[in-house]
């Protein structure tokens, strides 16, 4: 093996064997924001065999402060995060096969991606998607690593089906979208610390060192110096619908998926078409121009702006309506523009 991984091979927990094993593993990373870009870079530099990334968003200026993979040029080109991530990750390490999907992570869209992977990494920004990951993990017996952060605070937990309690066991009441919407900002170190906990656990799983897994739920605040490493053993519930004896995977049921969602802390509403479509973006761009919109396009999306109204439409028919938290207003903008 080349010098590339020599320092990691010298590390006693990994060695030649662990490095070889890591090179044969496939990770599914959900989300390519702050946690996603940092986790992706770490795993790709470490030499994971294959990385599949799912993200629904595109790169904006306010991302650059903490989303380490992206550049001003990506903002300028309005590249989808997944596409920009692929470009940068392939420059970092051509050994890793990087596959990306510019789609919304739903029970339906993720299900076909899961059976092939060895580990699911959580880099989402909402509990709706995390509970879908939790169900998929148990249905297909694949471990997943929860991570979340806000302000100077972060938390992480490794979930092994059949062994640890699951996220559904730990969250006695499911925090609804909106209740946990963050308005207090975030600093880069909170992202990096959360990613350090997530990716260290990922390396243990991917090099088959499961005995070294942490087994506690960590929670920390880098500003106040608070830290807790919490035992979870007593939290496993036999009647849990995700990991209990009569599991029914409630978050994979189609009736539990929302079509329209307010994006956390973003003054943005995502509107989805009832069924996925494959848009001709060039024609859509011309239509928007004819309606007096200022249009910017790339192979993945069309961005249109007129006065205070700004909308970004992706190839699968999804749209982000900016400058509003009002779902009814967002839907009317969508219908007016998309017919």
């Amino acid at each position, binding site marked *: 093996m080349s010098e590339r991984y020599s320092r990691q091979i010298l590390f006693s927990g990994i060695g030649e064997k662990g490095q070889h094993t890591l090179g044969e593993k496939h990770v599914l990373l959900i989300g390519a924001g702050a946690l996603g870009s940092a986790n992706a870079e770490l795993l790709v530099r470490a030499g994971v065999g294959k990385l599949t990334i799912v993200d629904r968003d595109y790169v904006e200026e306010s991302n650059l402060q903490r989303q380490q993979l992206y550049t001003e040029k990506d903002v300028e080109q309005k590249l989808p995060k997944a596409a920009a991530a692929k470009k940068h990750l392939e420059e970092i390490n051509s050994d890793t096969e990087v596959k990306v999907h510019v789609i919304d992570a739903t029970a339906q869209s993720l299900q076909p991606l899961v059976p092939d992977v060895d580990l699911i990494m959580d880099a989402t920004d909402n509990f709706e998607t995390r509970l879908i990951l939790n169900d998929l993990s148990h249905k297909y017996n694949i471990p997943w690593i929860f991570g979340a952060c806000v302000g100077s*605070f972060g938390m992480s937990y490794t979930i092994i089906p059949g062994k640890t309690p699951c996220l559904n066991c730990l969250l006695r009441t499911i925090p609804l979208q909106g209740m946990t919407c963050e308005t207090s900002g975030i600093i880069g170190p909170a992202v990096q610390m959360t990613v350090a906990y997530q990716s260290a656990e990922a390396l243990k799983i991917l090099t088959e060192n499961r005995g070294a897994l942490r087994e506690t739920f960590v929670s920390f605040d880098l500003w106040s110096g608070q830290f807790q490493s919490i035992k979870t053993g007593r939290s496993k519930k036999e009647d849990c619908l995700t990991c209990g004896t009569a599991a029914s995977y409630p978050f994979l049921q189609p009736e539990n998926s929302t079509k329209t969602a307010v994006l956390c802390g973003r003054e943005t509403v995502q509107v989805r078409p009832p069924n996925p479509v494959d848009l001709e973006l060039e024609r859509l761009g011309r239509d928007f121009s004819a309606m007096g919109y200022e249009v910017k396009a790339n192979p993945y999306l069309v961005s249109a702006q007129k006065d205070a109204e700004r909308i970004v439409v992706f190839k699968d028919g999804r749209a982000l309506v900016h400058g509003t938290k009002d779902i009814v207003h967002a839907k009317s903008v969508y219908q007016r523009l998309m017919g």
Partner: protein
Amino acid sequence: MIKVLFFAHLKDVIGSESVTLEMGGENIISLKKRISDQYRIDSLHTVMVAVNEEFADDSTILSDGDIVAFIPPVSGG
């Protein structure tokens, strides 16, 4: 005496990262009620609670010297 630690935005709502309370023999529900009443917080039902660094449910009885952490699940990423 028990010590209660507050994480994430709870720390800002309470105005302190911890408080010490005269308490013993009561359960987590009573503690949550006391904190909610005193600081006028109504969102404690989603908060995860650890007693001496082990997750605890609402019926867990507190004893003198316990350290309780209130950890709100955050969603950012």
